[in-house]
């Protein structure tokens, strides 16, 4: 059967009984079994549970279930707690951890009838930009298995790009949805901070973490998002912002935007590097669609990476203090004292990058350095947010590259953390400001995908998705698949 359909196409197929959810799920599980040994996109495949959930969805569909997600198989980043199913967060620390409860985001999707295919690979505790920091091994980029898929949600991006799942959940702290979406040639949305509950999402940096969606189009993302978003009393930072559009998305197809002002940050557009050709051609497509392009300035954006690595490190060092070898997670053998238990359990359970971030954060928060680093970073975070708010007084959206280059080779940056951190240069500013942002495929370089990033004001997901949908009506970059005539890819373009 053809599993490479849009979510709307799959939902129609299920409703018209062209295929059942059990057949669809079984077909995807067969592809996962065939491809995962090479791609390593999944840490855990929940085949039995998936087929049971699919059978239940088929019964619900026969009874007239109305949810567009009923019977649709999805993959979840292994950062979402799933009751009774191992939740590792890519770490040895949680290798044996069976979550005793469900994350709100995945519980809501389950209630809408979605089927869980399994838990996808990721950088340990979501710390990384290449998926090489996973205790369960690196993930391959399906376009070129010598290259990284991006990170930290690399497994989810890989699964969607390789056709192993029609959509997948990820989380984004500094770019962990957008960057792998760009590297793997799929669409990925990081919603506004607080839009999706963090309850049951293993915490990395709590003032930045946000769950979002990977899919093959903006329209598909709009099908999933409303079923997981919205206020949750179990998350103290969940937003109470109400949005009738989001509810309407569950019953109506996504519209397309045809007008508006789009800002081009001059700090980015003066040197686009290898993304120049695809970004400029994306600009022409948007102009031809009716958008007006204007220059904007984000004067403090150069300080975003240092600001981010202090704030995220500080929050990580605090959040990860819970892993003590006592209540859950890895415990060392034969601890000689309580302190020995803490130290060896943590040292054995955490990988090198996690330790590096904990130590960076500990340093930034330590006596004598708090003002110079942590407080300074929080003030710069305010300036960066003010830059965006000032720009949004003049424009409806901002565009930027998602990444400085195509996916890099596996192993190229593992020994240079600072060079690795520079990969996040375009994605971190929106994270610091709590803004919704997405990446959509906008071209290729040497046959590998590049992403266009759309950044909107707080809670402007509708504008982002409708603008992306408009772009995807005019172009076919999002329809290109890995392994299909890669030589011709650079010349593929507007339809």
């Amino acid at each position, binding site marked *: 059967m053809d599993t490479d359909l849009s979510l709307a196409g799959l939902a129609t197929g299920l409703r018209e009984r062209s295929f059942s959810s059990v057949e669809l799920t079984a077909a995807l599980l067969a592809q996962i079994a065939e491809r995962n040994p090479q791609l390593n996109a999944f840490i855990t495949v929940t085949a039995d549970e998936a087929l049971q959930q699919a059978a239940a969805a088929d019964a619900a569909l026969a009874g007239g279930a109305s949810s567009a997600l009923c019977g649709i198989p999805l993959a979840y980043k292994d950062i979402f707690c799933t009751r009774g199913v191992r939740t590792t967060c890519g770490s040895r620390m949680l290798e044996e951890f069976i979550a005793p409860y469900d994350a709100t985001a995945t519980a809501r999707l389950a209630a809408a009838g979605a089927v869980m295919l399994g838990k996808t690979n990721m950088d340990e505790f979501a710390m990384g930009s290449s998926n090489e920091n996973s205790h369960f091994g690196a993930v391959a980029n399906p376009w070129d298995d010598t290259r990284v898929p991006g990170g930290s949600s690399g497994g989810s991006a890989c699964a969607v790009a390789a056709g192993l799942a029609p959509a997948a959940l990820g989380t984004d702290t500094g770019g962990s949805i957008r960057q792998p979406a760009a590297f793997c040639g799929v669409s990925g949305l990081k919603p506004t*901070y607080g839009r999706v509950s963090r309850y049951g999402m293993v915490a990395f940096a709590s003032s930045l973490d946000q769950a979002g969606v990977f899919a093959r189009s903006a329209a598909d993302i709009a099908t999933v998002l409303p079923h997981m978003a919205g206020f949750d009393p179990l998350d103290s930072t969940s937003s109470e912002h109400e949005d009738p559009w989001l509810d309407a998305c569950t019953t109506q197809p996504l519209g397309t935007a045809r007008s508006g002002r789009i800002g081009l940050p001059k700090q980015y557009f003066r040197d686009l590097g290898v993304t120049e050709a695809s970004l400029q051609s994306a600009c022409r497509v948007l102009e031809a669609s009716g958008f007006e392009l204007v220059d904007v300035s984000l004067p403090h954006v150069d300080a975003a990476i240092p600001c981010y690595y*202090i704030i995220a490190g500080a929050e990580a060092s605090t959040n990860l203090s819970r892993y003590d070898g006592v209540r859950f997670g890895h415990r060392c053998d034969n601890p000689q004292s309580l302190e020995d238990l803490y130290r060896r359990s943590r040292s054995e359970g955490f990988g090198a990058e996690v330790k590096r971030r904990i*130590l960076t954060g500990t340093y930034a928060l330590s006596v004598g350095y708090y003002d110079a*680093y942590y*407080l300074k970073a929080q003030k710069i975070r305010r300036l960066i947010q003010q830059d965006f708010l000032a720009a949004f007084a003049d424009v409806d959206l901002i565009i930027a590259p998602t990444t400085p280059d195509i996916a890099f080779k596996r192993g190229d940056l593992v020994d240079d953390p600072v060079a690795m951190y520079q990969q996040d240069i375009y994605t971190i500013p929106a994270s610091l400001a709590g803004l919704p942002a997405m990446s959509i495929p906008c071209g290729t370089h040497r046959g590998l995908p590049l992403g266009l990033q759309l950044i909107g004001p707080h809670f402007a997901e509708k504008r982002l998705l409708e603008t992306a949908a408009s772009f995807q009506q005019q172009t076919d970059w999002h329809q290109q698949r890995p392994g299909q005539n890669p030589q011709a890819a650079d010349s593929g373009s507007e339809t």
Partner: protein
Amino acid sequence: MADIDIQHLANLAQLELSQQEISVVGEDLQRIMIMVDQMQAIDTSNVEPLAHPLDARQRLRPDQITETIERDLYQQGAPATADGLYLVPRVVE
């Protein structure tokens, strides 16, 4: 920039690092902090720190019982328990 005392940070963070790890992490942290020091060039006088991207306040809820503790379930994932208690090495002789 002054040398960073990695052993002191590891003690604060309850991590045990080998001599080799201390040397590698020391070099990494020096490079990271040199990158981070770009921040010092920015004038942040009279700027309020931003702790929450939407400047939200901590929400309070009514003081009502909304869930029950499932101790047995939660302790299934614990490395060592007995009689509902978590076991750790003896702290007091």
